[in-house]
Each structure stands twice: as C-alpha cells, then as structure tokens.
C-alpha cells in the first residue's frame, strides 16, 4: 500500500471549533483539488497527473426515482412536522424567528381529548357533595353541588366530535370550546375549581410534555436511530443479480437487465424479527457474504450463499437482566441506554491475517461508550469503554464503532471526534483520527454524524474513513490522523446519515461516493486517487433527484389523495443502497428506502464527454452497451412505462389506505336535548332517535318507516321563493326599496291575519319555510335531493303524529340553522337565477360547476363520512 508521495499543502492548527483566527485553506471549491502542486517535477500542464474530468456526470435516466415494489401494506403516519411542535405567532420585534415549543396548545388539547386522565384522579378525591360559599340568604339548592350530577353532566360530553369539527370549520380551527352546552352547575364548578385544576394538572404535565416535545423536535432535526441505513445490497450469482435486504422483512432478489431497469423476482424471503430494524450491514469476506442487522433489542447475523436463503448464524439478545461483564457491556436500563445507539458492523477482514474460522466479527457499541467485539464463536468481548466523550464534553450519548484496515484496530466515534483503538494494546490507548476542532477547520457547532470506513478488503485501496458532519464531509487517511485529505461542504438540507463508496465504472474512472440525507437529498461525489496519488474530487459533485421529484410522474389525484401521496413520497429516507456498476454496464442502480417502507430505485448512466476518455481504453464502453445511451436524454420527460408504473403504485397505495377517517360521535350532550322526552320512553320513535344520535347517524325518514314513499316528489313551487332570492333579484334591478316596502306591508298584514291559526299551522309553515330554503340547492344537484324532498315537502299529515313532527322539527331546525348560515354566505353567488328550473333537470356541466362551492363546503363542514352523506341529501 503506497502512501501518497506528496500531500496537498495545508495548515495545521490546534484549537477548539470555530477558530476564525487562522485562514481556512480549504476554499470549498471543488476545483481546488484539481490544482494540487504537481510534486517536485515542473508542472507539465498539458498532461496533469490527475485528469480533471469536466463533464463527468452520472445522468439519471428518469427525472426521479421510481417505485420498485408495491407500497408497503403497513399503515404509516407521517411524523410530526414543525407545525405541530412550534409555537405559531411568536414575539414580534425579534430579529429572527425563534424556536419555541408550543406547549400550551398541546396541553390544552390533551386536557380536552383526555380530560378523564387529567382530571379523574382529582374528581375521585371529591366528596359526595360540596358546598359553595355564598350569601347566607341563598338556599341550600343554590350552594350545595352534588358531585354525582356534575359527573353525569360531564359524562354526556364526548369531545371532538362532529359538531365540534363543524363548528371548528366555521370558526377559526382549534379556537372554540367543545363544552358548548354547559349546564349552570358545570359552569359554577369550573369557575370555582379552575385555578386548582389547571394548576395541578399543568404543573404535573407541563414539564413532562415539554421534555417530550423537545425530544420530538430534536428528532425532527436529527434522527440518529437510522444512522448507517437500513437497506443493503447483497451481490448475487452474477454481477447483474443481487439481493436487497430491508426491514420490511424481505430479501428481495433483484436482477438488472440490460436496459438498466431492475426486475424483481417473485418470492421474497422473509425473516421474522421482533422489533423494528434500525440498521442493515453487509460485508463480503473471502467470497462469503455476511449480513448483520441491528434492532432495538437484538443484533443478529446471517450468512448468505449465492443461492438459497440466508442461514442465521447467531442472534444476540440484549436483555435487561444481563449481569456481570455483559451488564457492563449492555447497561440496558431503558432510560439510560437507548438501544438505537448500538451500531453493528461486520469485520472487513484484512486479507493477510484473516483467520479461516473467524469469517465475521461485529463491533457493537452502546450509548454508555462501551465497544464490544462480537463473534458468533466467542461471543462478546469488551474492547473499549469510556463514558466520556473524546475531545470535549458533549451531552449526546451517540457512539459509533467501525473497523479499519488493520484487523485488530477499531475506530470509536462520538459527536466530538473519532479515535482509533488497538484492541490488543492496553486499555485507554489510542490515537485520535478525527477531532472536531481547528485541525479540520471545523465550524462552530459542528458535530460528527457518521463515521464510516471506506476501504475494502482485498484491494490495495487507500484506507480512507469518511466523516460526515452537518456541514461537510471529510476523508481521513488513517495513516495521517487529524489532517483531512479532502473536505467538501455538502450543503445538504438534512442530516447526512448514509454513505456508500462504490467501485469505479471501469478501471481508471473515479469512484462514485454516494451521500444521502435523511430528507431524501442525494449527492454524488467523484473520488479519485489510489496508491501514490492523493484522494481528491475528480469533478464537481452532483446532486441526484430525490423521491419527491418523481411526484410529477404520478397521475393527478383528488387533492386529499394527492396530499396523501405527497406525504408518502416525502417520508424520510432510512436506507440507501446501490448496485455497483460493472465493467460491461457502466450504469448505477440506486435504491432508497423510505420510512413508510417503500423502496424506490433510480437508474444512472455515466456520461463523461472529455478529459478522462484519452486515458482509459474503455472509454467507448460507456456509450456502447447501454442501448438508450445514444439517444439524447430529455431530463424532464417520463417514459410511458415509468408513468404506468407510478400510476399502478398510486392505485395500490390508495387501495391500501381508506381515506375516510374514523368518525367520532357528536359532542353535544344528548341528555340535555332529550331530557324533556324522558317521559315518552315507550315511543319507538324517540328510542330510535336516541340510538341514532348516540351512533352519530342521521335519522332518515325510511328508518322511521312511517312515511309513504311511493309518490313522486313534488316540484318546487315557484311562488314560494324565499325572501332572499326575491330581495337579491330586486336589488339586481334597483328595486330594493320598493320591495322592502311591499314586503313589510305584506308581512305585517299577514302577521295580523295569521296570528290566530298560528299554532295550528306552525308545523306546516316550518316545512314550507324549509322547502323554500332548500330549493336553492335543489337546483344545483337535483338528483341528490330526492330523499329530502320526498320527506319534507309533504305537509299532509300534520296532526296524525304530533310527536313525530315535533322531533322532526327539532332535527330539521338544527340542520337548517347551520345550513342557513352557509347559504347566506353563499348568497352572493348567482344561484337564484336558475332556481325556477324543475327538479328533473339532468345535472348539466354548468350546474355541477355551480355546485362546486357547496361541495367544497361539505368536507369542511364535518370532515367525516356520514356528514358527506348528509350534505348530499341536503343539496
């Protein structure tokens, strides 16, 4: 193994992070690397030692990744967003927006949603009655409150139900009280007990909630559980066939055909695991491929043959009750040690000293700073233990371990640095490989997010280590610690937790280094330099399309589903793998695993126009075998196959997830509403009504079974148009004043006339007014209004069943009031112009267009399934 003969000049400073005193000699330009001083011989710039490839580009064949497999059937919820966590509308007059966690809203929501949990213990403490202090003149009835009654009142409420959401949609969302129908008793109690209740609950809950929210917010910024990635590519029988391993529980055999599109073999192998998989690692040692999996409580290892399913070697269960050395090794008190910190890696054996009976070893580290070596034969072996961080004090318990070119030397990393530890040496000795400080010209607040050994066994490649931070990546040579061989500011907008170094497309070409951010951003760097030359960038890095970019390939869906699809595509990436390019096909197949369990692939072709071609004889190869390579690639177009694939995937996704959310029962207290009907319990009608209300269904006339339904619905009477329509029509013709006069005279006259028979005709007038309200929407979607018009436009049996009418009136009135409000909002629309149209008009294009605003209103009204039915009935 040669060491680079001449290194790039660089300043070496010691000191803490963010030292701005010294000049930063890494100028962050990708071309800087091309300008290394060519050693001691005079520069012969016509033939520089490192060919700079100007147009080296891995070109994606499609504008975005495509789904490889049908969507994962497991339900997936998009996680928390900043909207859920942050305080909206912070202080004004601040220089920049602040991070403030919205504890108050979360707390109030908790109190509403889980009032029983929050307040029940206090309620249990109360005596049977309690006395309110007050004027002595007050009677006992006024001052004594029965707790039983109180609880009964409370019991009738079901928060966050239908009415709540309806009301919330009308008002500002989230700003109204669900206890809209408070009894006086409740009011008195809440005023009295408010200070006590709120203080005790908020004291107890507030701190815990804040802690939890802070944790979630931190997780949103950086979720370290999936560091390293949970997707792996196992090379198969030939270079074109391989297996994908990912936590959906599958070993998926994938072959790459000549066109570059992956073909998935039918039956995936499954391995049953307990617990979610956080990391999957593979390694090939002497032709034997090993596979290791890190879960929350387990680490396991498999051996895979080129044919056949993987054979389990050993499972390491991490138990709470472990004692002795293993307890020191696995301090698994759940609070102290979050097991996500266990990283596991298969030893990439040194080709010379590889022992035949030790084909695989794993380095496992715990959050307490312990690193163990684990072999199936010998079990765990404590290698290193240091609860403190390496360079400076940092609260993060994240630790990492990996191997180096030497089989007995491990790297141990934390947020502040990476250390090389010789496991044969005395404990505590070691050499810092990377230090978050002035040595690597780190910025203030920079921390290590990932440390990975990039070398491969068997090849004489430089033993490089990749260190990723939030700002930059560093390539460190373990023979020259602390001085980065290469530094590049990646500028990713999420934490770079995955990296894969792939073999070159053909000998002489730079090696692609893939860098994946959790938010789905991908970057590809071209790394050259082997043996006597320094590792450096062989061209400007490029970004690859992320999963969200393929949204345009999916067919347009209705907004709600579109949003669902987008959320699914925006799911954080938890794994990155690539089928390496081989000599015959200089193409790269990239796989991404999202947190929702979906696997996407992206096919990349190498396009290098100039610069490098002269040096390598294989240059025509890139263009040769790929059939589509000669065609000019239009990046912005999707092939029909790709679109078809996407639409099939979208269909499958939509089938998987029902869009209707679970319907919640209404929130109002029916005890109060139906209180006056308690005496008529024998009536089947009221029972039905009660049952319907409890279930939150609509009580339709058919359910009552009383109304004849043979007759056709009567046509709306044009004479009985509502006032609003008339008034609008008049105002359109500038005759409002006249209309108003006439109307006043008419109403006053009619009032005097109809004063006496009022009671008698009360019900019928209600219905007639109802029809007059209803005929506006009737026209807009006449076919849907059948049900209602059959029932309500029939004022015939007013006296036969008074109780029935009464209830119906109640019901219709409540529905009607809401509807009225909506309609009044809509009154500006020129709906009334078409009102005289008969019911039987077929729904034309125009009418359906007109119905649009009403329809749009409908989901807002309730946001649940049955209300939509209701609106269909009404309109």
């Amino acid at each position: 193994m040669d060491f680079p003969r001449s290194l790039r000049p660089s300043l070496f400073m010691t000191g803490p992070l963010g030292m701005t005193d010294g000049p930063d000699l890494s100028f962050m330009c990708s071309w800087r690397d091309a300008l290394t001083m060519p050693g001691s011989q005079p520069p012969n710039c016509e033939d520089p030692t490192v060919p700079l490839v100007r147009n080296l580009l891995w070109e994606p064949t499609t504008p975005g990744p495509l789904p490889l497999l049908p969507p994962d059937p497991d339900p997936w919820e998009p996680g928390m967003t900043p909207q859920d966590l942050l305080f909206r509308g912070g202080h004004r007059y601040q220089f920049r927006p602040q991070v403030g966690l919205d504890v108050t809203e979360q707390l109030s929501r908790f109190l509403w949603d889980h009032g029983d949990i929050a307040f029940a213990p206090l309620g249990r403490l109360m005596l049977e009655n309690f006395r309110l202090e007050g004027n002595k003149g007050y009677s006992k009835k006024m001052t004594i409150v029965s707790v039983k009654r109180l609880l009964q009142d409370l019991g009738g409420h079901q928060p966050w139900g239908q009415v709540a959401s309806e009301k919330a949609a009308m008002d500002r969302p989230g700003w109204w009280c669900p206890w809209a129908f408070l009894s006086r008793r409740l009011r008195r109690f809440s005023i009295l007990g408010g200070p006590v209740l709120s203080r005790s609950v908020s004291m107890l809950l507030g701190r815990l909630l804040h802690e939890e929210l802070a944790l979630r917010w931190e997780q949103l910024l950086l979720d370290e559980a999936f560091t390293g990635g949970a997707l792996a590519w196992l090379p198969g029988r030939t270079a074109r066939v391989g297996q994908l391993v990912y936590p959906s529980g599958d070993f998926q055999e994938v072959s790459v055909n000549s066109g570059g599109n992956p073909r998935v073999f039918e039956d995936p192998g499954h391995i049953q695991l307990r617990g979610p998989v956080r990391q999957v690692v593979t390694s090939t040692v002497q032709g034997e491929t090993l596979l290791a999996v890190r879960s929350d409580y387990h680490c396991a290892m498999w051996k895979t043959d080129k044919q056949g399913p993987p054979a389990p070697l050993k499972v390491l269960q991490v138990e709470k009750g472990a004692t002795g050395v293993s307890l020191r090794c696995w301090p698994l008190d759940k609070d102290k040690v979050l097991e996500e910190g266990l990283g596991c890696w298969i030893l990439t054996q040194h080709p010379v000293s590889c022992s035949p009976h030790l084909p695989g070893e794993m380095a496992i580290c715990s959050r307490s700073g312990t690193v163990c070596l684990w072999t199936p034969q010998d079990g765990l072996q404590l290698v290193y233990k240091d609860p403190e961080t390496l360079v400076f004090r940092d609260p993060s318990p994240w630790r990492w371990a990996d191997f180096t070119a030497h089989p007995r030397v491990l790297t141990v990393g934390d947020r502040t640095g990476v250390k090389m530890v010789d496991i044969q040496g005395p404990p505590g000795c070691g050499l810092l490989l990377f230090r978050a400080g002035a040595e690597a010209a780190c910025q203030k607040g920079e921390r290590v997010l990932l440390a990975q050994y990039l070398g491969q066994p068997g090849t004489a490649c430089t033993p490089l280590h990749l260190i990723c931070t939030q700002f930059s990546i560093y390539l460190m040579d373990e023979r020259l610690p602390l001085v980065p061989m290469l530094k590049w500011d990646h500028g990713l907008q999420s934490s770079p937790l995955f990296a894969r170094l792939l073999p070159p497309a053909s000998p002489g070409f730079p090696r692609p280094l893939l860098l994946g951010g959790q938010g789905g951003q991908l970057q590809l760097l071209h790394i050259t330099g082997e043996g006597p030359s320094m590792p450096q960038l062989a061209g400007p890095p490029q970004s690859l399309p992320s999963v969200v970019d393929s949204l345009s390939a999916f067919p347009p869906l209705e907004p709600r589903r579109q949003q669902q699809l987008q959320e699914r595509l925006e799911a954080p990436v938890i794994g990155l793998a690539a089928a390496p390019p081989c000599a015959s096909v200089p193409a790269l197949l990239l796989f991404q695993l999202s947190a929702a369990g979906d696997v996407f692939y992206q096919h990349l072709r190498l396009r290098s126009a100039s610069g490098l071609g002269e040096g390598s004889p294989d240059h025509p190869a890139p263009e040769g075998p790929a059939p589509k390579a000669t065609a000019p690639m239009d990046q912005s177009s999707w092939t029909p196959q790709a679109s078809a694939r996407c639409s099939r995937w979208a269909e499958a996704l939509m089938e998987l997830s029902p869009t209707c959310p679970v319907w919640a029962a209404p929130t109002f207290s029916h005890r109060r509403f139906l209180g006056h009907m308690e005496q008529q319990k024998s009536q089947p009608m009221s029972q039905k009504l009660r049952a319907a209300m409890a279930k939150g269904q609509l009580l339709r006339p058919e359910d009552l079974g009383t109304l004849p339904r043979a007759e056709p619905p009567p046509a709306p009477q044009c004479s009985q148009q509502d006032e609003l329509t008339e008034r609008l029509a008049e105002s359109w013709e500038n005759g409002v004043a006249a209309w108003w006069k006439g109307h006043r005279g008419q109403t006053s006259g009619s009032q005097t006339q109809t004063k006496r028979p009022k009671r008698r005709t009360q019900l019928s007038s209600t219905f007639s007014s109802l029809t007059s309200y209803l005929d506006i929407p009737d026209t807009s979607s006449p076919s849907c209004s059948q049900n209602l018009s059959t029932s309500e436009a029939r004022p015939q049996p007013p006296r036969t069943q008074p109780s029935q009418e009464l209830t119906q009136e109640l019901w219709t009135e409540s529905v009607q009031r809401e509807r009225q409000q909506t309609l009044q909002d809509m009154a500006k629309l020129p709906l009334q112009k078409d009102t005289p149209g008969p019911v039987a008009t077929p729904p034309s294009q125009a009418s359906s267009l007109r119905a649009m605003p009403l329809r749009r209103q409908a989901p807002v009204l309730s946001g649940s399934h049955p209300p939509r039915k209701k609106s269909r009935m009404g309109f």
Partner: protein
Amino acid sequence: MSKFHDELTRLAVAERDKRKGSVLSNPGMHFPWLQERIETVVTGGKKKRDFTQTTSVCLSFIQEALLKHRWQQAADYMHSYLQTLEDSDTFKRQAAPEIIWKLGSEILFYHPKSNVETFNNFADRMKNIGVLNYLKISLQHALYLLHHGMLEDANRNLTDAEAWRYGEKSSSQEVLINLVQAYKGLLQYYTWSKKKKELSELDEDDYAYTAKSQNMLSQSCKTSASISALLKTPGVWDPFVKSYVEMLEFYGDQDGAREILTNYAYDEKFPSNPNAHIYLYEFLKREKAPRAKLISVLKILHGIVPSHPLMLEFHMMLRKSGCRYFRYILKQDHETLKKKIKRMKKSVKKYSIVNPGVRT
C-alpha cells in the same frame, strides 16, 4: 443610525444564542437546516424583506444549478445574485464577497465558454471588493493560472499579493503571506529545476554555464528565503519541503537540509506526516548515514504506516543487524501462531466427536 441598527442586531443575535439552548438537549450543536424548518411555520418575528428573500432564493438556485452541472443557468442567476453586495445587513454584506468568489470561480472554472481572460477579470474585480479576501483570492487565482500553464502570470500575481498589506498584520494574514511566498518559491524552484536540466546538457567550460549557474544561485537564495518562513508554521508542506531540500542538497548545504527535514519530521507541533519520515529516510540514505539511524527513522514510519513498501527495506535491515526488536516481533508472531494452531486442533477434535466420520 446604521451604527444603532448594528448594535441592535448584535444584541438580538446574542439573545438568540442564549436562548437556543432551551429547546435542544445538545445546545452546542448547530443545524444548517434549522432555519428552513422554522420558516415552514409562521413564527412571527420580523418579516423578511423582499430583498433578503430574493437573494436567498437566488443563492439556492445557484447552488442547485451548480450541483446539477447547469453552468449557464448558474451564470444567469449569478448575474442577479450580485445584488447581495448591497445588503443592508452588515454581517451579510461582509460575507458576500467570499460567497460570490466561491460560486463565481466555480462557475467560471467549469463553464464551457469561459476562458482565462474572463477568469482574470473576475478575479481582479473580486480582489478589490472584499479587501479581506485579497490574499486568498490572489492565491487561488495564481493556482488557476498555474493550472493553465501560465507560470509568468502566476508569478506576477503572487508578487503583487506578497507586497499587499492591510491594516494591522494579523496572524492569519501572516500565514497567508507566508503561503503566498512559499508558492512563489515553488514557482522559482520550477524555473530553477528547468535551468538545472538545461545546465546538465551544457558543457562545464562554456561561458554560458557560469552565467547560468550564477543565475541559479541567486534564484535559490530567493527561494530559500520565501519557503523557509512557511516551514516554521505547523502544517503539511510536502511539495515545499521536497523542493527546498533538493535545492539545498544541490548547493551542498547538507546540514541545512537535515535540519529542515528533522524539524519537519520530529517537531511536536506538526502532524505526524509519514512523508516527513520518508523524506528524511531518503535523505539519510543518500547521505549514507549509519544503519542505526536509518532503522530509527523507519521504526517510526513502521508505527505510522506498517504497510509501506519501505518496510521491506526495514525488514532487510533488521535482519542484517540482528536487532533484538526484530527478534521480539518474530517471537510474538510465533506465539500467536502457536495459539491458533492449538485452537484449531481443539475445534477439529470437537467436530470429530460430534461427527465421527470426519477424521483428523
């Protein structure tokens, strides 16, 4: 007024830094994507001005175009981005020239239509916009010229930069000036070595020979002056050391060369650079130093790079000298081998019990 505004800004920043710790358990960690996440939520605060918004959007467009290798598009956006030089935010205004230089030089380096002249123009302008970046930009400009084979221009550039001073001489400025001088020295070394090559082709009695050698001598004096200053600063200075030592050796200053190399290899402040030891070893070998000295150098190298090809020589040397250290190493290996054989025998035995068909 602007002073007052700056004061306010600083206060606000200080307050923000204080408060940031309240939400994260790791308050020292900075997330470059934090601002973006916050901005998805309307969190009040001062509303961003249109100017700031357009500038930041423009910057992100340029970065995206660069990463997609769309140089023309990036150049177009760059046109608009120059407005950031007029930002009213002092901090941003100061940081702007560096960003513009980075992005602009990157675009001009890769743009298919750009040439050296365009780059020269751009670099000359940028040098005078951000006064503080003068040295950095000059250095990079010189490297660019060097890359394009224009040694003369590069030399002139470095000479200009060398003479440049601004305000009080800070330590970072000093390092940069040293670096500029060292690169100049390296250029001089190139011309020197070219002349040396020509000289070797000339006859020694020639008149031209003496003139040339005189010329070379003066060149080497200049070079040593410019390089030696930098070599006192800790760092990785492989090309400088190598060329400097070669010149010193040529003029027979063995002690000077040895001192430089020893210092470069053994100074605590310098990183443990394997090349330093390799250079020292090669020098000592040329000098025909005693074997013990060579071994001691290689021993250190063995500690850093055990896989280096020089280790074969080390091995040979140890063998010849019959050193105790080597015997120790051999014994160690022997011990481990013994253990392994023992273990293997055990496992073979075990398997033969379980499976009597297998014979040892």
